């Protein structure tokens, strides 16, 4: 019998079709052909991009020239524009405002072939420090309510360039999925006076069957009501509501767990396209009591059909317990 599982935060039900006992190899991966055009993100091609906003670079090198290790630029095709006022207005039953916001690209490495799975630990820490620095800078702009840091890896996951990069979008609104988490977490808090994410982490750590990796400060696990096969979340073990407050020691822990987790996903699923996104508190309203920042990683191994977007009901052919076994044990045959 397929099972219905409910996500305790957003109250979303997922249909788990676990009886077919699928193997990782049963999920088809779309491998796009390698791009052959001149890459605007490679060192030496800095003139092909907008002027950089920040970079980690070797001493005695100039901005917008080679010598960098991580480089941040405005997106050349921004979904939102940085200048201007919001000009909120109503049109009958409808509401709108100007698309004011920031849209930046974080070039994670000068090496075109790199990726989170093979960065050195210094490189991965530099990338995470960059996220934090851009996050802190943009959260000071009073027009913005939310800052999303995310990565589309592979063209099936929405990446238009192969060169390793992530993106940041600052918006004047709180995105709907985050709002649902905030609402769900608040309701739980009013009922129990505990953080729902802390309770999830406690239960995952005590049950153990969905854990992928843990270190001193972080845990990676497959959520109980996973929407996608091999969906993986990374969360700080201690209660922390805002990604921007992360300290240096925690960044090292996060670098370790992100690399370990992405390596496992890449190995088990034959280098799948994937997305990750950081969910944190809205700018300027620290949801100290009830929210808990975390990273959601979604390998893109299935097509989402009409049923999913029409109903908000996801179909998942791989139970998170089984996915966890494949990820932690390379010799597990199912």
């Amino acid at each position: 019998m397929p099972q219905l599982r409910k996500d305790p935060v957003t109250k979303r039900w997922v249909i788990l079709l676990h009886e077919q006992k699928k193997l990782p190899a049963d999920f088809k991966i779309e491998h796009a052909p390698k791009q052959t055009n001149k890459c605007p993100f490679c060192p030496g091609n800095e003139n092909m991009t907008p002027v950089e906003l920040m970079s980690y670079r070797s001493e005695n090198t100039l901005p917008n020239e080679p010598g960098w290790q991580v480089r941040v630029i405005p997106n050349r095709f921004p979904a939102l524009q940085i200048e201007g006022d919001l000009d909120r207005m109503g049109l009958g039953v409808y509401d709108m405002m100007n698309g004011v916001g920031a849209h930046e690209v974080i070039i994670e490495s000068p090496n075109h072939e790199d990726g989170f799975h093979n960065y050195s630990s210094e490189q991965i820490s530099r990338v995470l420090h960059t996220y934090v620095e851009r996050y802190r800078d943009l959260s000071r702009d009073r027009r913005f309510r939310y800052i999303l840091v995310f990565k589309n890896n592979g063209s099936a996951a929405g990446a238009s360039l192969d060169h390793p990069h992530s993106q940041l979008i600052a918006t004047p609104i709180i995105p709907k999925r985050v709002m649902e988490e905030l609402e769900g977490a608040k309701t739980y808090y009013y009922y129990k006076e505990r953080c729902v994410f802390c309770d999830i982490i406690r239960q995952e750590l005590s049950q153990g069957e969905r854990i992928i990796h843990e270190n001193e400060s972080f845990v990676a696990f497959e959520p109980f009501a996973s929407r996608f096969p091999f969906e993986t979340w990374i969360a700080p073990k201690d209660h922390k509501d805002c990604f921007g407050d992360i300290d240096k020691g925690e960044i090292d822990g996060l670098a370790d767990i992100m690399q370990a987790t992405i390596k496992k996903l890449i190995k088990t699923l034959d280098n799948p396209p994937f997305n990750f996104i950081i969910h944190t508190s809205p700018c300027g309203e620290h949801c100290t009591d009830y929210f808990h920042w975390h990273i959601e990683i979604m390998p893109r191994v299935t097509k989402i059909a009409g049923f999913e977007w029409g109903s908000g009901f996801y179909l998942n052919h791989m139970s998170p317990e089984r996915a966890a076994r494949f990820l932690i044990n390379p010799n597990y045959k199912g």
Partner: protein
Amino acid sequence: MPQLRKDPILKQWVIISPERGKRPSDYKKTIEEPDDSAECPFCEGKEHLTPNETLSFRTAGTDANKKGWWVRIIPDSEPILRPEGEPGREGFGMFDAMNSIGVHEVVIESPNHNSRIHNATNDQVREIIWAYKQRLLEIKKNPSYKHFMVVKNSGAGLSNFTHSHSHIIATPIIPKRVEEEIEGAREYYHYHDRCLFCDIVKQEQKDQMRLVYENDQFIVFCPFASRFPFEMQIMPKSHQPFFEMIENNLVQTFADALQNTLKRQEAVLPGQPYNMVLHTSPCSDSYKDFYHWHVEIIPKLTKVAGFEWGSGFYINPTTPEDAAKALRDIAIK
């Protein structure tokens, strides 16, 4: 300047970013539909390859599960929900689970392998709608189902079968997206004492610029805060909460609106795959004042990136006004 627009029902913000402006021809069809006519279990004469039918419209004197039908409904051979068994609601610590009890059936929309809604006769489209209605009324008699919907995944990459078909799905819970629509519509109703969907119909008729087609009883438009390029909705003009209660005269005009819409879509975006979902009120009278059944059609033109999944915040490169104009102005047969 890009715009941020808010969906008044779901309260979802969408970035309309026409600077990335795309015309219909910019959306390239990436994969062709395979020819699966030889092994198609939905064709007339192959009835023995499917589970036994739950409903069919067939010529008098022909037997069930044999030739002679023009619309046929069967249980899905790999159902995501199953009608037998107990709900089995259970908690695991802080997590909740239950058995996947429900109905999952396939509506075979024509005995002919190559017929599609956009090129079928109008009578055939009307018969498909009658079949939806009749089957839903039957399923509704089981009180364990809280909600049902009709879903259609059409085209390469979206469906395992090219033969024209749709799914009927009845669930023991109200799905989240429908719950959200209900919440939004309820709040609006409490504030204004009016149905939000009715107000949208009136405003779209007045504004005109997002209108694709209308007849006496239905309007078709591109929603103000469309998440996807060329997204469309079909809505009855008068307040109708339950699709399955559709009156005889509306079946005909709904068939006309549906077929006209899909013809326009096919003319503007030839061969592109699409998803269609019919949302109706949950199986209870408590929503009838503010819920209004409708159809959502989404051509699959763009890849949804992680940003959209993870945030619920969509970036649409084509304004609904431009999309509606292209769909409205195109000549159809």
